[in-house]
């Protein structure tokens, strides 16, 4: 049984069911507010939600039960930064007990060491000397991907749209770029090599082989074999039909395996040619295979946002994605076949699965 936390434009909806079958709503929280992201911490069982009221600003809330009372954790910029929180894009568990991270716009990282009850700005990244040159992507200057390193709490890889990949090996004392090999086609050729204006869309680390990280870029799909220091193109040349897309999902038990949902282009951010397909690689991006069984194949122009594709740790692998059409599709057989598990939801911003 999977509990799927679906962040939508009109609240958090909790679905329950089996991957590959029907999933029923069992709870709805924050009615009317946009829930950008929600996560259940498997260590404590607590739920976290990034919620933006259309009136009262962005807040991170925590609860023991999504149907019960939620508490505002008070995540906010310190006064002396002069900054205001725009949106919390992602929350991830850290490697140490009680540690969580939150990635936000405008391009900052927050850390909690008390299980998410309070948060502190990670100053070293906020005060990085290159920050004045950071440029936002279409979704704002968003820190949307936080890749921890299993067993090594001091190592992180982050992705900021559009300020590239950031790496630390010393617990955020220092940061360095990890952008080598990424080609921003939206820049003039002369400017591509040195620019940090890199619009990473999503990044996921293979937990069994942490040096391996997969990336969906604004124009391309990449893989790193050296923990994010450098990147190889595994996109169109490997058989993908188009370069654009937002999320990327992995198989946590197989570092050679990843999944994407291609969208036509930046100028047309919908499933390619009206067909919803999930592409899978089993050979680290050397080749890709399209899966379409159970997915709409005619006149289906869906948008799947960067936090709206996830996986579980079951065997066979369960995969889940939601679209701004309000549909949620799931697979219980590693992406081979799919089911429309829920529909008529508000536009979906994020999905995260919890299987106990």
């Amino acid at each position: 049984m999977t509990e799927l936390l679906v962040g939508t434009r009109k609240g958090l909806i909790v679905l329950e069911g089996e991957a590959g079958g029907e999933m029923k709503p069992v709870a709805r929280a924050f009615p009317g507010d946009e829930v950008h992201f929600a996560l259940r911490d498997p260590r404590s069982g607590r739920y976290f939600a990034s919620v933006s009221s259309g009136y009262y600003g962005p807040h991170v809330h925590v609860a023991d039960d999504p149907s019960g009372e939620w508490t505002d954790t008070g995540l906010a910029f310190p006064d002396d930064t002069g900054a205001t929180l725009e949106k919390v894009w992602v929350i991830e568990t850290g490697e140490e007990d009680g540690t969580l991270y939150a990635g936000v716009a405008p391009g900052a990282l927050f850390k909690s060491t008390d299980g998410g009850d309070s948060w502190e700005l990670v100053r070293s990244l906020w005060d990085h000397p290159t920050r004045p040159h950071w440029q936002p992507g279409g979704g704002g200057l968003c820190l949307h991907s936080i890749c921890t390193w299993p067993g090594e709490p001091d190592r992180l890889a982050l992705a900021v749209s559009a300020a590239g990949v950031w790496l630390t090996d010393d617990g955020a004392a220092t940061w360095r770029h990890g952008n080598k090999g990424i080609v921003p086609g939206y820049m003039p050729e002369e400017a591509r090599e040195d620019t940090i204006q890199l619009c990473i869309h999503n990044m996921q680390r293979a937990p069994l082989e942490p040096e391996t990280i997969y990336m969906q870029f604004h124009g391309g799909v990449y893989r790193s074999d050296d923990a994010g220091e450098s990147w190889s193109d595994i996109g169109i040349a490997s058989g993908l039909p188009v370069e654009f897309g937002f999320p990327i999902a992995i198989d946590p038990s197989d570092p050679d395996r990843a999944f994407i949902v291609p969208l036509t282009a930046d100028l047309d951010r919908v499933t390619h040619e009206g067909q919803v397909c999930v592409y899978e690689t089993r050979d680290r991006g050397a080749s890709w295979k399209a899966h379409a069984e159970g997915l709409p194949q005619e006149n289906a122009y869906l948008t799947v946002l960067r936090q709206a594709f996830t996986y579980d740790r079951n065997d066979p692998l369960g995969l889940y994605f939601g679209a701004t059409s309000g549909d949620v599709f799931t697979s219980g057989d590693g992406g081979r076949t799919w089911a429309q598990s829920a529909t008529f939801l508000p536009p979906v911003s994020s999905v995260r699965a919890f299987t106990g």
Partner: protein
Amino acid sequence: MPTVTLRSPLKQRAGRDSVEVAGATLSDVVEGLERVAPALRGWVTDEQGRIRRHVNVFINGEPAEPGDAVGPSDRVDIIHAITGGER
């Protein structure tokens, strides 16, 4: 002392639909509101103390600005604006 009236969801967060808050200006009153009702911290104002863009504040029914004077028997209404909300 001025009285601040609250609507949903602020009144649920504060646990009441009106709060008496001392202050000579609107910004004093709003700042004081967050002290008297800590659950509202970060909801009416942002981290820099600015009243949020889609929150309207009125003094005795008139639209008000942060520097406006507030009298001891004045009513301050905090109401979410029609310009806000989620599409």
